[in-house]
């Protein structure tokens, strides 16, 4: 589903972050990527999302080389097939929860009937008319998860989604995320520092200077 | 603002200097300009009281009174009162009551040894609205609140007051008129048209009041009046004149003048000495000689005046001594005229002979133009 073929990327100032990165991910996989700070986890996510282009190599999503698409085509691809979950939630403060969740549907010109169901799925039944400022951090991330999955994306990218949350809430959110990704049949990539978080994935990859390597982790549950 | 004022005065000064220039140097060419004005001709018989009055057909006319006064505490004072009438030569056809056909100009000066310098002031105005005039028929001149009037009985009343000084005098004749030169036809130069009509009233007995710092002082004394009118009389070569009029202690009267030439020498001179019985002795130009004895340099104008003068009329030697040196009439700050007009005492052959006034004009070279 996702193929990384010999991807190279250096920062503007010349420091290499990703070198000869090659990896393939099957549809329906839910993988956690770990790695030291500065090793290029965020860069990798940007490349996968088509928000940045590799210096060389290719990234394919369902055989489409996203790295060679122009901005509009990449945006279109993201809109239809991607879902994003951020550490800082990034829920628009001036939209209601329902509106926030409906955003991807609106962008794709799809009917918004699924929003209520999705709200219920993430545990926010009947709160669609609330504004984000009325919510706690955990609740905000639930909204973000709903938004990321509402349009049944093929690939969900989560960047340290529990970084701003307390451990108990984090556990709930990770569980919810996994459930929702699996329920919606999406492929998931979870970038995290937390072993506990990584443990909720199907398997864990370690990003190092030499590339992506499987890592063994004890399942925490 | 003060600056403006001064500049305004400066313009005005030029104007008055001009008048003064005309007064002292009425040039021959002006005759041609003003054909409406009459020339001075010999043989005219002065008639009175008509000729006491103003003569509007002549360019320039003045009544000049100078004299010595004494306060009640016997302090001497000199005074000078002058009224000029001047025909502008303009506005002849102008029906406006403001039409500036004639100007009236007046000077008032007081020499007080206690003050040490001349106090003087002057005024000018156009004739009109009964605010300023010189009437024909009898002496009757007015400039705002300054007046000089000759009454029926021959007595002159002068009233001239200004901010801080002034005088109100009554002058009574004690002798008959003194017609100068050829029955009042007074030659001023070698050419016959260089002349004026000129009579004097010496030995006027003066009583009245002098005001100093607005305080009235009763005074009495002797004065000399000149009345002279002409259209043009000075030679273009003339530089200025020296003039003296004196009431002598023995009742006789002396008048002498010389008109100086630009580069030394004299254009004309004249003198007349009338004794108490009325006999007049005339002196021709060659018989009259002015010799400076002592000069005084004015601190105001830098002009050098021969304030002490030796005068010879025929055989007689006169010596003139000023009451005070600084009797310069320097009004460049207001009207611009500068001359020396001072009370003097006379000695004849080194004996005190009388008192009079000496006038020295044309000594400030650049006439402040």
């Amino acid at each position, binding site marked *: 589903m996702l193929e990384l073929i010999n991807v190279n990327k250096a920062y503007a100032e010349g420091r290499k972050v990703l070198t000869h990165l090659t990896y393939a991910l099957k549809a329906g996989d839910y993988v956690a990527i770990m790695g030291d*700070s500065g090793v290029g986890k965020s860069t990798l996510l940007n490349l996968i*999302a088509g*928000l940045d282009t590799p210096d060389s190599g290719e990234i394919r999503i369902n055989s489409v080389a996203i790295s060679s698409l122009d*901005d*509009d085509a990449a*945006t*279109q691809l*993201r*809109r*239809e097939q*991607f*879902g*994003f979950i*951020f*550490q*800082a939630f*990034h829920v*628009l*403060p*001036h*939209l209601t929860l329902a*509106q926030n969740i409906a*955003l*991807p549907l*609106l*962008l*794709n010109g799809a009917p918004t009937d699924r929003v209520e169901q999705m709200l219920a799925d993430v545990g926010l039944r009947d709160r669609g008319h609330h*504004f*984000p*400022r009325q919510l706690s951090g955990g609740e905000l991330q639930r909204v973000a998860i709903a*938004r990321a999955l509402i349009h049944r994306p093929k690939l969900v990218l989560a*960047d*340290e989604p529990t*970084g701003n949350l307390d451990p108990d809430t984090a556990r709930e959110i990770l569980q919810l995320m996994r459930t929702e990704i699996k329920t919606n049949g999406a492929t998931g990539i979870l970038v995290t520092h937390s072993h506990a978080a990584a443990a909720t994935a199907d398997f864990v990859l370690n990003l190092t200077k030499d590339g992506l390597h499987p890592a063994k982790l004890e399942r925490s549950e | *603002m003060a600056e*403006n*004022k001064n500049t*305004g*005065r400066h*313009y*005005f000064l*030029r*104007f008055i200097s*001009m008048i003064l220039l005309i007064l002292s140097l009425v040039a021959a060419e002006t005759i041609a300009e003003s054909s409406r004005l009459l020339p001075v001709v010999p043989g005219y018989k002065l008639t009175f009281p008509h000729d006491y009055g103003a003569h509007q057909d002549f360019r320039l006319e003045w009544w000049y009174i100078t004299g010595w006064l004494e306060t009640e505490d016997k302090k001497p004072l000199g005074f000078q009162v002058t009224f000029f009438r001047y025909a*502008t030569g*303009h*506005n002849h056809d*102008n*029906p*406006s*009551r*403001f*039409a*500036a056909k004639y*100007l009236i100009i007046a000077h008032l000066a007081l020499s007080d040894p206690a003050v040490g310098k001349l106090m003087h002031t002057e005024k000018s*105005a*156009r004739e009109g*609205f009964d*605010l300023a005039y010189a009437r024909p028929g009898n002496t009757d001149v007015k400039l705002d609140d300054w007046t000089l009037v000759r009454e029926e009985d021959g007595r002159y009343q002068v009233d001239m007051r200004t*901010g801080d000084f002034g005088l109100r005098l009554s002058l009574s004749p004690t002798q008959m008129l003194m017609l100068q030169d050829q029955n009042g036809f007074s030659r001023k130069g070698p050419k016959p048209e260089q002349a004026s009509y000129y009579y004097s009233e010496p030995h006027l007995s003066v009583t009245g009041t002098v005001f100093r710092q607005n305080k009235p002082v009763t005074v009495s004394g002797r004065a000399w009046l000149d009345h002279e009118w002409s259209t043009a009389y000075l030679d273009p070569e003339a530089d200025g004149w020296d003039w003296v009029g004196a009431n002598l202690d023995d009742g006789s009267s002396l008048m002498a003048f010389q008109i100086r030439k630009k580069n030394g020498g004299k254009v004309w001179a004249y003198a007349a000495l009338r004794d108490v019985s009325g006999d007049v002795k005339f002196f021709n130009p060659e018989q009259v000689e002015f010799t400076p004895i002592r000069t005084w340099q004015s601190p105001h104008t830098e002009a050098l005046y021969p304030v002490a003068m030796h005068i010879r009329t025929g055989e007689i030697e006169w010596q003139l001594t000023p009451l005070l040196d600084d009797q310069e009439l320097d009004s460049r700050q207001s009207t611009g005229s500068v001359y020396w007009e001072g009370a003097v005492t006379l000695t004849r052959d080194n004996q005190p002979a009388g008192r009079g006034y000496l006038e020295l004009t044309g000594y400030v070279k650049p006439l402040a133009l």
Partner: protein
Amino acid sequence: MSSASLSRWLLFGEWRAHFVQMIVALIAIAIGVAMAFSIHLINTAAFNEFSAASKSLSGQSDLQVYGRKAFFDESLYPLLANTEGVALANPVLELDVVVPGKLQNRNDHKLKIIGIDMFRAVHISPDLLGLTEEGKTLDRLADDAIFLSPAAMEWLQVKQGDSLSLNVGLQTITLRVAGGLVRARAGQRIAVMDIGVAQWHFQQLGLLSRVELKLKNGVNHAAFKVKLTDELGESYRVTEAIDQEKRIANMSRAYRVNLNMLALVALFTGTFLVFSTQVLSVIRRRQQFALLRVLGFTRQQLLQQIITEGAILGVIGSLLGLGLGYAIAATAIQLLGGDLGTNFFPGVKPSIYFDPMAAVIFFLVGLIVTMLGSIAPALEAARAKPALALRSGSEDVAMAKFSPPWFAVICLSVALLFTQLPPIFELPVFGYLAIALLLIGGIALMPRLAAWAFSGLLTLLQRYRLSTVLTLVLARLANAPNQAAIALGGILASFSLMVAMAIMVTSFRVSIDDWLGHVLPADLYVRAAASGDQGGFQLDTQKTIAELPGFDRVDFFRTQQVSLDVNRPEITLFARPVDRTDARNTLPLTDDRIASGALPENVMPIWVSEAMVDLYGYRVGEKVRLPVGATSSEFLIAGVWRDYGRQFGAVQMQLADYQRLTGDLTVNTVALWLQAGMTADAAIANLRQLPFGAALEISRSSDMRALSLEIFDRSFAVTYLLEMVAVVIGLLGVAASFSAQTLARAKEFGMLRHIGVMRRQIFSMLAAEGGLLTLLGIVLGFVLGWSISLILVFIVNPQSFHWTMQLHLPWGWLTMIAGIMLVSAALTALLAGRQAVSGNVIRAVREDW
């Protein structure tokens, strides 16, 4: 590390990071201060010069005696000269004489000629003594001599020794330029002649304009003035220099106050911009400040930090503004003259005087406003609980505190109340205050209105399938109204002022156009080159003109200036045939009148202009005495008419009454109606053929109308200029707030880009936000502007100029301006927001750098 250097780091860091916004803030402050300061400079320069020029004419006299009419008999002069206590009486004859060849310049074709007696004037106004050629001092008295100021020489293109032709009545006289008036003020266009000569040549024999008096030392001026006024009776008025200054001030006061008010409007708009820029800048950094608080900054330190920042901006901006204002004023005076092209102060050429006191005041205004803009949000930031402030989405709540609705309601109510109050010192102070309050109230109400409008729109449109962009835009505008309102404030202020001025000017212009049609009913108007108060046409010339073929009707007018009040400028008295059956056929009467049929037989009716009602308290039906004829006579006020020509008052009466009272049969103006088939050109040719034809001043009413409107337009040119500045300031506001918001919303845009919003969609969002906001601003601005225009038309104008007008709306123009505003605001928003799609935005969503 000392806290001072920390403070410095923070300050420079902020400015480095937001350099453009800092510059915009500086420009805003500078423009606001510059506009107000430059207008103040221009006004004071023009006024000072005008009054100095007037003073230089009247000199340093203690008292001046004028007649009720422009001229009086000279017999008063010796009387005054001989009055006890008078040291000097200086007679003056002052005339405005038509210069042939300058006639096309209707407002500016006269030369002021002052006739003086140099022997008197030297003591009072020595500057008026002409400088003659060397040695020709007596030229000052010569009967063909005229002395010209340098400006007059330049205007007339003559020099010393040239001859100068002037029109007097129906004749032309030729004078000799005998010299200059070197002490005349720069630009002062005057001529001086001997008073006797002037009386003679300008046919003013026996007449004077005034006598100036110098009193003797020790005379009590006030007591003397009272006594003299008493002795002279009602035909004369005695004034002091102070009265004179008051008259001049009165003459131009309404004009000056209006300009100053416009300057204040510019300052106000600028102030608002400064305020909003500062508020935005502080609000944007709420989280940063909260962090500083968390780190241990005390409230005190935080406040100090923000205020220091505001003060530095305020000082630099205000200084820039002073410099800019001075430069603008100097340029404007150079290019347009001190009255900015309105001809309000004719014949002066002022130069700017840098008044340090005024500079300090304007500097302080700029500084204080900037500081206020910083202090209000700084207080909020300092008071905010750091924990709450750290959360995003709280900015709008914080901003809501700056515009509580009760404040807006109070402002608007007080404004309404103020519209009902009378003028103070004849100035519409409350009217202007009402305008300011309307603006403040309107702006304060903006957030609520924006929220209502946009959520209403959102609800309304939700049943249709809305594009994502529009949904996002409307949701944001509806739910974050305070940030929107800040951007809108500038637009609202400038557009409403523009609408108000446009409506006012149009109403005025249309009213004037109607009025001109009414007051210029004839086809041709013929004037004799007037000098002084003489009617130029004697009986025989009147008859000659009346007998010319080709005219349906010939009317004769006699006009003159009459003084009713020492402290006020003269009023104009018109004597003309007024239709006896209905005065409305002759005069542009208001409804306030007595029907012509209802007039009693034995009274003399007059019709007064609106200014007479306001200034002199004249009421229809009252009887008043006016100084017409040898003594004053009683008249009945029969009606009120509109007069846009003379704000100091005018009275119309029957010509027959005038001639009976005064015995003056001359007239100044002849109105001619052409017969059918007669062309104006032919009629003018006929008139020119008359023996005195060359000296006639003939105008077609159509030309006069065109010219009047042209002058009107010129005098409002400066208004348009100020409006443009207000618009630029408004757009600057949009730019400032959008660029600030774009930064603040970086994460929002980053997220949107992540989830599949296209670059161009972000652009459309920004443009739509800007456009919608501007649209709302325009709609509200229109309502607000319309309300303000009502105040201008129905309160400010009648109270300051004493004339009323009808309301007219310039729809076409307003639509055009609205369109331009809309497009430029959207573009501005777009330009200011172009960072919203940069790479930084995408990175902004990451928190773990």
